[in-house]
């Protein structure tokens, strides 16, 4: 590891979007021949920072120096000129073309009669060879390759562009263990060639396996830069979620408030899973109980919620509700079985921006009735009246388009939408993310009351202490599988959950490669 000068130095970077300060004086240093990991929960500002470096966003304040020279990056082309290449989570290649064409697009070797394909394919082959991908035939269609290998091809492409800085934005999120290992081999070889690598991943094990240096962001602010070996997992997690390890210790659960009935579960899933999303899992939900899903981003918490709701179709497993087999393959079917799901993606999957508060509130109820049986205006008004006042939606004007409300009030309206369907099971994915403190407390309080009224609530949050506080039982997820199920109450705290996540896999025989365990399907 060299202690040479950083090739990229970002200092005091601030970026604001209308109403939000996405980055607040954040810094980042990338050194040649080093793998640097950017860590942070959702909304920490990771992707904004990367987009600032790749020229997609313009910075409001701060300075970007590349090889010591201050640079203004006005677009992706500028960044590529400066030797910065990016490989995204979603493979950004053209699957309709061959491997060689993808590697060489825009850099084809040209002769007198236009593109010299023989030379182009040879050049592609040589580039692939350098990354240990010599076995690939450049004339083969890209689409025939597994996703992981496509990622590697995308990396080869950046080699053709002679990059000095390679950004890998969550390249591993849908790869299996062998594929990750293959990717890491390539990353190490690039590092040894002196390329500065910025790596983003949510898999702690991978982070510790590959990176030399870490930068942690939280809520758009810089938390710190550390040598990887100087920071243990528990410390890292607490940096990411913004609580000291000691503070976490004191945040014990308030004790289980509700005693679960011994009656059969309302909802019981055996081995439900979906390839690439979540491995086979069992989960039971009872009336009058809040079950929390704890785990870092990318652990499979959202994926599990979507499977339960039928937003994604499970590949495997069986679901029983009230002792009868239930096929829940679409949101409409889930709603018919009185399951409701509030998505974490409020903007794209929750509110319908141009509809009014009233229309957003009654949408799910109306969808379940079908369009031919409209909800009489009087009933609509009653629903609107009930939830606007119960949840404290402000401003209490039901005809206002929902896009004009604040995030917290939009979230309340969505909560109202799902409650209006009178669900037995309510799945709340990050109901309090990105909203102001007041609204957050109101929603938390309301959710606690729901379980007392006999609802079964599945609560998901990236703030582990919030999960601990809300839940009677906590399912801990990591790397797309369930690693623990804890009864709420004495002894369960945010800290103990952090430890469970941090320690998982450490004692595992396969941990020497420190990549997540592959469950062969």
């Amino acid at each position, binding site marked *: 590891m060299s202690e040479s000068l950083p090739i990229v130095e970002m200092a005091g970077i601030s970026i604001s979007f209308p109403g939000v300060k996405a980055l607040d004086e954040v810094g980042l240093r990338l050194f040649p021949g080093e793998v640097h990991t950017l860590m942070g929960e959702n909304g920490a500002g990771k992707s904004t920072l990367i987009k600032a470096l790749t020229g997609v966003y313009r910075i409001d304040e701060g300075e970007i120096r590349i090889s010591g020279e201050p640079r203004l990056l006005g677009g992706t082309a500028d960044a590529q000129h400066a030797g910065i290449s990016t490989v995204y989570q979603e493979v950004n290649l053209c699957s309709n073309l061959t491997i060689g064409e993808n590697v060489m697009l825009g850099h084809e070797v040209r002769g007198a009669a236009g593109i010299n394909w023989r030379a182009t394919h040879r050049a592609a082959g040589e580039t692939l060879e350098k990354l240990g991908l010599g076995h690939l035939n450049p004339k083969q269609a890209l689409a025939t390759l597994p996703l992981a290998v496509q990622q590697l091809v995308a990396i080869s492409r950046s080699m053709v562009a002679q990059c000095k800085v390679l950004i890998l934005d969550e390249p591993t999120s*849908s790869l299996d263990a062998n594929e990750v290992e293959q990717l890491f081999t390539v990353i190490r070889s690039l590092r040894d060639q002196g390329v500065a690598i910025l790596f983003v991943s949510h898999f702690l094990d991978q982070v510790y396996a590959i990176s030399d240096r870490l930068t942690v962001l939280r809520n758009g602010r810089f938390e710190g830069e550390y040598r990887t070996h100087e920071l243990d997992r528990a410390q890292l997690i607490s940096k990411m979620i913004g609580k000291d390890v000691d503070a976490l210790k004191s945040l014990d659960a308030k004790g289980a408030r509700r005693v679960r009935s011994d009656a059969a579960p309302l909802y019981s899933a055996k081995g439900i899973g979906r390839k690439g999303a979540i491995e086979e899992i069992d989960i039971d939900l009872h009336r009058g109980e809040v079950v929390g899903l704890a785990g870092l981003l990318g652990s499979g918490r959202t994926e599990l919620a979507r499977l339960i709701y039928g937003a994604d179709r499970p590949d495997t497993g069986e679901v029983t509700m009230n002792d009868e087999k239930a096929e829940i393959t679409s949101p409409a079917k889930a709603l018919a079985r009185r399951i409701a799901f509030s998505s974490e993606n409020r903007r794209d999957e929750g509110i319908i921006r141009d509809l009014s508060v009233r229309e957003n509130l009654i949408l799910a109820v109306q969808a379940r009735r079908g369009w031919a049986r409209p909800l009489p205006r009087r009933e609509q008004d009653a629903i609107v009246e009930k939830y606007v006042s119960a949840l404290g939606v402000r401003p209490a004007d039901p005809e206002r388009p929902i896009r004009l409300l604040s995030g917290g009030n939009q979230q309340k309206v969505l909560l109202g939408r799902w409650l209006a369907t009178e669900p037995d099971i309510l799945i709340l994915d990050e109901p309090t993310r990105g909203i102001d403190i007041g609204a957050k407390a109101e929603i938390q309080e309301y959710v606690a009351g729901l379980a007392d009224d006999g609802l079964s609530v599945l609560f998901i949050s990236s703030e582990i202490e919030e999960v601990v506080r809300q839940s009677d039982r906590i399912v801990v997820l990591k790397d797309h599988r369930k690693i623990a199920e804890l009864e709420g109450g004495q002894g369960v705290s945010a800290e103990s959950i952090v430890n469970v996540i941090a320690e998982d896999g450490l004692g595992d025989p396969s941990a020497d490669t420190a990549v997540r365990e592959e469950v062969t399907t």
Partner: protein
Amino acid sequence: MSTLTTTRTEPTGARALAKRLSLHLDTLPTAAAVAIFIGMIVYGEAAYGRIVQFNTLSNLLINNAHLIILAVGLTFVILTGGIDLSVGAVIAFSSVAGVMLMNAGWNPWLAVLLMVLIGTAFGAASGVLVQHFHVQPFIATLAMMFLGRGLASILSTVPERLADDSPVRSLGAQIKVYDGPKVNDVVLTPGVIIAAVVVVAAFFVLHRTRMGRTVYAIGGSEQSAALMGLPVAATKMWVYIISGTLSGLAAVVYTARLGSAQNITGIGWELDAIAATVIGGTLLTGGAGFVLGSVVGALVLGLMNVLITRDGGIPPEATTIITGGILLVFVLLQRAVLARRRE
């Protein structure tokens, strides 16, 4: 989630064969078009006779030279995932304007140049609407279609005849290449040669230039192409300009052969050209297809007309139903192929 899923196991035996086949799924529609073309020739020869002979095949090329040129232009646009509905109307306006100018005493070759440039201008207008104002391609080019048709009608609503001694007619003059028995000759026109040059040039551009590869890349994924730093905006402009220009050229070829132009010329040709392109194996969603496939597609449609005429039993009115049916079958075939590829 990515749109691509992985096949992790190494293929063995039958699966390997299936995988090899799936590698060539792209070419399946084109192969189907060639098979249909050959099948039609065989059927036509068996049922009506006098199909596999020089003059029938020569006439097939002569009568469809303009359609081949149009289909080549549309191949560019459709490869990027766009569409151009204006080509038929552009032909109407361009040919009426050209013939009227010639009859008004313009230098015929200058008028021919203007006919081509009119197409270029229409293409450029579509391109600006699509690329800079994010108008959906079919709406932008539908507007251009109505503009072209309307302008042609403003100029004239009666057939405008080209003077008998106009040098432009020489572009439609038949050149006997090989003198067969009786009338069974191999005949070409300069129009056919123009079409052939267009096909070769288009093939070169699409397969041998960076711009051509960018066209394919945009069709595969516009977003990826932009992130790879390819000139997406300029290329999208170019494909509409190419399509428009080739429409202008097709107007020249068609007018020279027919010797007259009218405002109702080219009604429905955009559909023929789209059908030719799709039959020839170009995916309507973009990213895959071949110029040569589009040529075969155009010839399939041309041959279909010949067979319908020869048959006499099929009402000529049914032609559009058959074209529509073939288009639908091929679009469904494409979907099936795409679905297979995603597996």
